[in-house]
Structure formats: structure tokens, C-alpha cells
């Protein structure tokens, strides 16, 4: 009969006791605790006995029982470091292939790590030059339309908040308000320069640190028509001469330069070419609309507090303010809250945001990808070191016999891996310099957002990364070596179970390849989806259309001139370009029902030119002036939303709706099309007529020679407008640009996938080389006994191939589910995931791996057995 297992105290507690207790006291103390444990088992049962044991172990953690730190051990490490260096160098040089695999893998993966470190450090150092960064807060707004549930989160707010907030929150030190969107042509004596400026009130320069080079901080933005320029703008306008006190004319208004500030640093979320005093807007007559609580779209308010606090603490006061002011509104509610300035760049997306934003999940994903790649390289190191442990076991054995302790051997191998990681860092830094340039050139916005400067702080982080990578890579081999039994090793090295850790190694290889396959599959699926987005049937035609931003010119005059170009087949005008993501909305009222409907104001050529399909009715017939419209064309969603004529397009014709106080008859119903981006479902949209929307010309061309046509358009533009650069873009390219973020993400993931595959393959290659080398004798004997070459190749390959198959079986379903259930649910108009894509990716990886394995095994199988066996 089997004996009842004896009750034992919890192992970890005993181990803990061993760890902290002085060796002199340890034995009898442990015995005492054991004796009590035995008694308690008999008396109180095993569970409470274990609990008491644990408590006792913890209670004995007292000054007189804790072991003294043995400084001597550390001292030995220092003495031995020279020897560690020497042996590391020797082993590096002796195994050139493995050293190369390790160093290249670590260098390549760490260069990605370096890039991510610089990106993250850039993001966190945004606005660092502001000395009040930690106690500056932005007022942000949440607004809900009456009758709707979806709320809009805005980075902008009402100027009225700035005027009232000091009454509600007396703790506030300073308030400043600014308004974006000034753009005009600055005329000085002999030149005209287009300038985008920001309106700002007088405390702007006190709240933010944009140092004035010239002018008076107290009054620079006080008076109406004051203008503060950046150094760069001042130079553009006035050259070398002193700008202060000079005048600049925009249209008919004359502004006086009251200050020049230093150029705005790159890592600033607020950026401007010039500042205009906010009081300029009110000059002459006070604009009531500007100061209304509902005007929340273009204004930004910042406050500073005497010291950093938790922004939610002031929320009740802000809620009271919102509640009181909301009484003046009828169709929406607005509520404000505070956002710390340090969260602006990493705060996720808010509508009307200024400056760059970077969603934290994207950042964490980037970090995650870098970590995965680095870990993959670490796995290589671990795998190869443990696999080759036999060759260094004698060294370890001798060290141990001479008197090295566990911790010394551990230290030696950790030091070795850290040294290799630091060596790899040198190469990876060179790679990083290349990567950095490529990354900044990847997309034109990236260079605006990131500087990726190499600061002392970043270099310290780089070193830290290398050390951590070294430790991560070397920990397992070091533990393995330190536990080695010296006598065993010296007596008979071949008896050592070198393949004892095969399980772990296999797991590591599977993990590496699974991750690589996931990356590859994700890239391919993503690419397909992106292609799908760009070539999606939007419901209207975009081919051969060039959109031309008028920039203040008269559309009709330009259209007449452009029509002379033979390649131009048609010209229409519109207020905006659809399907690029931007939206304009106005309230539409049908009977008593009213809601915000997206709109585009177009001329009579627009709908035919873009080949919108009419389900009923026809294009605009009347040609009214602005404000005297009588007709409207809507899409199916409008009929559905308001349930006009039971959603029957034919019957909806002639129905009357109200927009902007005008009574409009529906003269046409167009088929649903994509007004916004494909990330959103199709919503109600209306077309209103405008003879001159004055924003864009849509030029349809039929031309074999696109550059020549663009050239002639450029010529026409030059004739009419000598100030502004022509801004003409091909519609299809604009659509691609609208989804540029996706192509960017794809490029990055694709690149990482490439690296991951390379590193995993390197590791696999190393393992294959090692295995075939150690099995050379076995192969030779088999061959002598009559094994066929194919049989041998199969024998050597099958283990590795099985691992690859396991990786595929794990990776593909995971990727599929991830995309199907998580990513693509966010895109209502996505493509189906094609299985061939995923299989294709894994096939490529398999093929690569097979090549690597094959080349080595074939070499081994073809070996002349006589040569190998002779040398025994």
C-alpha cells in the first residue's frame, strides 16, 4: 500500500528562511520550526499548521537572524572582471558564427528599441520648454445636441469660459484665450506674404513662455490691431530691418508690430507664425457671437494654477459654471473640464485639436513591438548559449573547483551577455541613425511632429536598454551554468545532459516564429484592407479629377480661364471635398423634427461631374444667389432619418425642408455615398446650391500627359494669383493621403515583421548548425550502415519543421480572430479577410526556414562518413 505522503511545510517559506537567515542559526531554527509544524499538524490540521509556519518564518525576520551581506563576494567580482572580459572575448572570437548571429540580432532589434525610446521621449518632452507645464491646464469641452445621445469632445472651448472661469475658480492664477484660423495676405511696402496667425489675448505671453525679443510683455497684445511676429516671419516680412513699430496691412486693416518672439520650438503643441491681439476682433463693435457660450469651435482657453493639482478637484466648480451658462442655450448643452497640459499630446483624439496627438495605445503598441523584437533576439542568445553549454562546461567546472561560487559564475555569464549587448549597442546606434532618417522621411507629418534628437538623457536610456537586454538574454544561460555540478562536468563532460533543456528551447523557437507569422499575416491583411479603403467604391467617381483650392480667388474667373486648356473636360465648384474625412454640418428641419445634417455647397456642374447617381429627380435648376435658395438635393439617409414620404425617393420630391431659415424643396435624391471617411457609417447628407462656393474647383481632365496639364494649370494660376502657391491635388491621391495613417502603420508593422523574421531565422539557422554539428557522428554511422541521403535529411529536418507547423497552427487563427473580432469591427466597410493572404505569408516564412534548414542538413548528409569517423 502506498504510504500517506507526509505533511510538509510550504517550500517557498523554507526557501525564504534559507535566503535571509544566518547560516549559524539556520539549522536548529529550521528544526524548531519543523517540530512546531509537526505538532500543529497533529493538533490543528495541516492548513493552519502551514499558515502558522509561514507566519513564524516571517516573524523570525529580525535583525539578529538576518545574514550579513558579504562584501567580499562583490569584491571578487571586481577582481575577476578582467578574467571575465578575457574569456568572453575568447569565446566570442572562437565561435564566429554564433557571435555574429547574436550580435547582429541584438543590434538590429535594439535599433528599433532606440527608435522607440526617442519617439516616446519626444512625446513626453512636448512643451517641456514651458516652465509652467505642470501647472497649466487647457479647458476642453463636451457638447451634446438636443435630442441626440452622441457627445462631441472638443479641444476647443468658448471664449466666455475664459472670461468667467476666474469667478468660479478663484484659485486660478492666470487665464489666457486664443483663437485659431486667421489667414490672410500680409502686405508690407513692397511685398505680399500669406500668413496664418492666431488671435491671442494679452496674458498669452505671460502664461506661455514664448520669449519676446523685442516689445513689451505687458502690453504687446493689449491694443486692437497689435501684431506679434516670430523671428522667422519678421524676417520674411521685413528682412534684416527692425520690425518693431512697423505696420502690416491685411486687406484694408492695418496692424502694428508690437513685438517679436523667438521662433516656436519644434516640440510645442501650440504653433504660430504670428499673433494678433484678440481685441482686434472686437475693435469697432463688440462681436456678441464671439463671446457667446455656444461659440466653442475655434477658441482655446488655458489657465495656470499656483501649483499642480488634480484637475478633477475643480470639476464641481466648472460644472456649476457650465450649468449656469447652459441656460442661455436652446439646442445644445456644453460642459467644460480641465486637461493638464502634459496630457495634451498623449491625450487621445479630441475634435479641433491643435498640435500633434498620439493615442497612448499606439505608443504602447510601438513599445510592445520593440520589446517583442528585442526579446526575439534575446531568445536567440539564450538558445544558442544553452545549446553550446557543453563546450564551456569545463571552464565552469574549473572555476568552481578553484573556488568560484554560484554567484560568481552567474555574475560571469551575466557580465558576458551584458558586454555583448553593449557591443551590439554600438552597431545598433549606427543602424539607429539610418532608421531615424528613414523614419523622419516616411511621411511629411512625422518630421513636423518628432525631432528625435539625441540628448544625454536618451543616451542614458539607450545604455539602460542595452544592459537590460543583456540581462534578459543572459539570465537563463547564466542560471544554467551556475547550477552546473563541477565534479560531474570534470569527470565526464559527455554525461552532461545538454539536451535536458530542449523543451524550453523548442518553446522559445515556437514563440519566435509564432510572433513572426502573426506580424507577417497582419501586414498582409492590413495591406489588403488599406487597398480596399483606397479603391473603395465611394458612390461617386473620383478618377481624373484635380481639386484646386481657390485661396481667396474668384472661382468663376479661374474656371473660365482653365476651361481654355484642351485637356480640361469639365469644371465644377464646391465648398469642400468629400470622402477625405472633414465634415460640415447645418441643422435641417422637417416638420417639427430637426437635426444636424452634413452638407456640401456645390454648383450645378458638381453632381454630373462626379457622376452621383440620382434615384429620383434631377440636378439643381434654379440659379439663386446666396441666401435665396429654393432647392435641395439629399441622400437616402436623409429620407430615412426624417422618414420623408416613407423613404420613397420619387414621392419625396417636392417635400419642403428648412435649412438656415430658408424653405427648400427636395428636387433630387442621390444614392448614398461616402461623405466622411470609411471609418464611419453613411450618414444623412444634403447638397445645397451655391453659384460660387469659393473654396474649391473640381477640374475633370482627360489627358495623356498629366505633368503637362498640371503645368498649364499652374500657368493659368500664376496669371491670376501672384501671391499664393497653386494648391492642386489629384482626387485619388488625396484619398490615399486621407488614409495615410494606415499606410504608415502598415509600413511600420511590415518593417517590424521583416526584422522579426530575420532574427527568428538567424536563430533557427544557428540551432540547425549546432544540431547538425553535434549529430555529425551519428549521421556518419547511419550512412555507413546504409541510410539514404533523403532519409537523413528527413531525420534532421523533422524536428524543426514540426516546430514551424506548430507556430503556424497557433499564429494564423490568432491573427484571424484578432482582425475579425477586434480590428475590423471598427471599420464598417472593410474587406473580407482572405485566407490566401494569410497562408501566403506563412508559406514564405516556411520556405525561408526550409531553405535554412535544408542547406545545413543537406551539407551534413552529404558528408563523407569516412572523414568524420576517422578523426575519432
Amino acid at each position, binding site marked *: 500500500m502506498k504510504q500517506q505522503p507526509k505533511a510538509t511545510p510550504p517550500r517557498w517559506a523554507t526557501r525564504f528562511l534559507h535566503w535571509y537567515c544566518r547560516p549559524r*542559526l539556520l*539549522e*536548529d*531554527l*529550521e*528544526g*524548531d*520550526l*519543523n*517540530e*512546531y509544524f*509537526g505538532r500543529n499538524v497533529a493538533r490543528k490540521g495541516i492548513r493552519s499548521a502551514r499558515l502558522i509556519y509561514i507566519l*513564524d518564518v516571517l*516573524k*523570525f525576520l*529580525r535583525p*539578529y537572524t538576518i545574514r550579513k551581506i558579504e562584501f567580499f563576494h562583490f569584491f571578487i567580482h571586481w577582481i575577476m572582471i578582467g578574467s571575465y572580459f578575457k574569456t568572453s572575448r575568447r569565446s566570442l572570437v572562437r565561435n564566429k558564427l554564433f557571435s555574429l548571429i547574436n550580435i547582429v540580432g541584438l543590434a538590429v532589434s535594439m535599433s528599433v528599441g532606440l527608435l522607440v525610446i526617442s519617439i516616446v521621449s519626444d512625446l513626453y518632452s512636448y512643451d517641456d520648454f514651458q516652465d509652467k507645464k505642470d501647472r497649466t491646464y487647457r479647458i476642453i469641452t463636451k457638447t451634446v445636441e438636443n435630442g441626440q445621445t452622441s457627445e462631441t469632445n472638443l479641444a476647443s472651448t468658448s471664449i466666455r469660459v475664459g472670461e468667467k472661469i476666474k469667478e468660479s475658480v478663484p484659485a486660478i492664477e492666470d487665464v489666457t484665450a486664443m483663437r485659431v484660423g486667421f489667414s490672410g495676405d500680409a502686405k508690407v511696402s513692397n511685398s505680399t506674404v500669406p500668413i496664418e496667425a492666431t488671435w491671442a489675448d494679452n496674458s498669452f505671453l505671460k502664461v506661455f513662455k514664448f520669449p519676446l525679443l523685442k516689445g513689451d510683455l505687458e502690453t504687446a497684445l493689449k491694443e486692437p490691431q497689435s501684431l506679434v511676429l516670430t523671428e522667422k516671419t519678421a524676417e520674411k516680412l521685413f528682412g534684416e530691418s527692425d520690425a518693431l513699430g512697423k505696420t502690416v496691412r491685411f486687406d484694408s486693416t492695418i496692424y502694428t508690430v508690437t513685438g517679436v518672439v523667438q521662433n516656436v520650438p519644434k516640440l510645442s503643441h501650440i504653433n504660430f507664425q504670428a499673433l494678433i491681439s484678440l481685441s482686434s476682433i472686437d475693435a469697432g463693435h463688440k462681436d456678441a457671437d464671439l463671446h457667446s457660450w455656444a461659440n466653442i469651435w475655434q477658441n482655446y482657453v488655458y489657465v495656470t494654477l499656483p501649483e499642480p493639482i488634480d484637475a478633477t478637484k475643480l470639476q464641481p466648480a466648472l460644472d456649476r459654471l457650465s450649468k449656469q451658462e447652459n441656460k442661455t442655450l436652446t439646442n445644445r448643452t456644453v460642459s467644460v473640464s480641465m486637461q493638464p497640459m502634459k496630457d495634451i499630446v498623449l491625450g487621445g483624439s479630441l475634435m479641433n485639436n491643435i498640435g500633434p496627438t498620439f493615442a497612448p495605445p499606439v505608443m504602447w503598441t510601438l513599445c510592445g513591438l520593440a520589446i517583442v523584437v528585442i526579446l526575439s533576439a534575446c531568445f536567440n542568445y539564450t538558445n544558442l548559449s544553452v545549446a553550446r553549454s557543453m563546450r564551456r562546461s569545463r571552464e565552469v567546472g574549473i572555476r568552481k573547483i578553484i573556488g568560484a561560487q554560484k554567484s560568481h559564475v552567474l555574475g560571469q555569464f551575466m557580465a558576458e551577455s551584458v558586454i555583448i549587448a553593449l557591443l551590439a549597442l554600438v552597431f545598433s546606434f549606427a543602424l539607429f541613425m539610418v532608421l531615424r532618417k528613414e523614419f523622419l522621411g516616411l511621411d511629411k507629418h512625422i518630421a513636423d511632429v518628432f525631432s528625435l534628437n539625441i540628448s544625454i538623457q536618451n543616451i542614458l536610456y539607450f545604455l539602460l536598454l542595452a544592459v537590460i537586454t543583456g540581462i534578459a538574454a543572459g539570465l537563463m544561460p547564466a542560471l544554467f551554468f551556475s547550477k552546473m555540478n563541477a565534479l560531474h562536468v570534470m569527470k565526464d563532460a559527455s554525461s552532461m545532459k545538454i539536451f535536458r533543456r530542449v523543451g524550453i528551447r523548442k518553446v522559445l523557437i515556437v514563440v519566435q516564429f509564432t510572433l513572426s507569422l502573426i506580424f507577417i499575416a497582419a501586414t498582409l491583411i492590413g495591406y489588403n484592407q488599406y487597398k480596399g479603403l483606397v479603391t473603395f467604391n465611394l458612390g461617386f467617381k473620383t478618377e481624373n479629377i484635380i481639386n484646386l483650392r481657390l485661396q481667396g480667388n474668384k472661382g468663376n474667373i479661374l474656371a473660365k480661364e482653365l476651361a481654355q486648356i484642351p485637356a480640361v473636360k469639365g469644371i465644377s465648384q464646391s465648398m469642400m471635398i468629400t470622402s477625405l474625412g472633414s465634415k460640415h454640418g447645418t441643422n435641417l428641419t422637417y416638420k417639427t423634427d430637426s437635426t444636424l445634417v452634413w452638407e456640401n455647397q456645390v454648383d450645378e456642374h458638381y453632381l454630373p461631374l462626379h457622376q452621383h447617381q440620382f434615384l429620383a429627380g434631377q440636378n439643381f435648376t434654379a440659379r439663386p444667389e446666396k441666401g435665396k435658395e429654393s432647392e435641395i438635393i439629399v441622400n437616402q439617409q436623409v429620407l430615412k432619418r426624417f422618414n420623408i414620404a416613407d423613404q420613397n425617393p420619387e414621392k419625396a420630391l417636392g417635400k419642403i425642408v428648412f435649412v438656415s431659415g430658408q424653405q427648400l424643396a427636395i428636387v433630387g435624391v442621390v444614392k448614398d455615398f461616402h461623405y466622411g471617411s470609411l471609418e464611419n457609417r453613411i450618414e444623412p447628407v444634403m447638397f445645397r446650391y451655391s453659384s460660387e462656393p469659393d473654396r474649391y474647383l473640381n477640374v475633370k481632365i482627360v489627358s495623356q500627359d498629366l505633368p503637362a496639364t498640371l503645368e498649364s494649370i499652374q500657368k493659368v494660376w500664376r496669371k491670376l494669383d501672384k501671391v499664393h502657391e497653386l494648391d492642386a491635388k489629384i482626387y485619388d491621391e488625396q484619398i490615399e493621403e486621407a488614409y495615410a495613417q494606415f499606410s504608415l502603420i502598415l509600413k511600420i508593422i511590415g518593417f517590424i515583421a521583416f526584422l522579426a523574421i530575420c532574427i527568428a531565422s538567424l536563430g533557427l539557422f544557428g540551432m540547425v548548425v549546432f544540431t547538425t554539428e553535434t549529430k555529425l557522428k551519428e549521421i556518419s554511422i547511419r550512412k555507413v550502415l546504409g541510410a539514404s541521403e533523403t532519409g537523413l535529411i528527413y531525420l534532421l529536418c523533422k524536428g524543426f519543421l514540426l516546430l514551424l507547423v506548430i507556430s503556424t497552427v497557433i499564429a494564423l487563427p490568432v491573427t484571424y480572430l484578432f482582425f475579425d473580432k477586434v480590428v475590423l469591427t471598427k471599420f464598417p466597410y472593410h474587406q473580407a479577410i482572405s485566407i490566401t493572404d494569410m497562408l501566403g505569408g506563412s508559406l514564405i516564412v516556411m520556405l525561408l526556414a526550409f531553405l535554412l534548414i535544408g542547406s545545413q542538413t543537406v551539407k551534413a548528409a552529404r558528408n563523407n562518413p569516412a572523414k568524420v569517423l576517422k578523426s575519432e
Partner: protein
Amino acid sequence: MKGANLGEFEELVLLTIASMASEAYSVAICDELEKYTGRTAKLGVVHSALNRLEEKGMAKSRLGEATSARGGKRKRFYEVSHAGKVALVKSKEVRENIWRNIPGFNLEGSI
């Protein structure tokens, strides 16, 4: 010297060791103490007291033979050293001296 005096609990522990002859090891001392005083003696308290006594040179210890009990761990046996004996005798004398100088102290009447 810091260790010339005995604390009350230390004195009790030392006396118990003396009373137990050669079988005095930590767990047994705890049990004996409980018997003498009627209070529970925690191992942690006794252990640190023993450690202090040994530091002060009033007790000596040696490890016994390993047995299969106690998870194969040896016991540490304590005995009273010469200095310990001196300290015990001295403390007893001090007490007796004081007792002698209490006139007509009658324990029975006061309770």
C-alpha cells in the same frame, strides 16, 4: 559591560536551562517554561532570549546529533556557563537581601 545584568525573562530562561540538565533545546525550553509559569512561551521570544544569553556569555550551546525527526535538522542544546551561574546566584542573593529587609511582610494577609 552591557551584558552583566539579567533581564527578568532572561533569568527565567536561564533557570529553566539549569533545571533541565542536558536536554535543554529551544522547543523543550519553551515547554518547560510554560509548565513553570503557566504562561505560553512563544518560540520567537525564547529564541531571541537564548541568542542574547549566548551573546552575553551566560549560556553555551552545541549542536546535537541529527535524527530523522525535525526534518533531519539537528537540535542546538544549551547549558549555563560559569558566568551564567554567577549571574543567577548573584541575582538570587540580591532578591533574598531585599526580602530580608521587608519587616513583617505577610503574604497571606494582603490578599
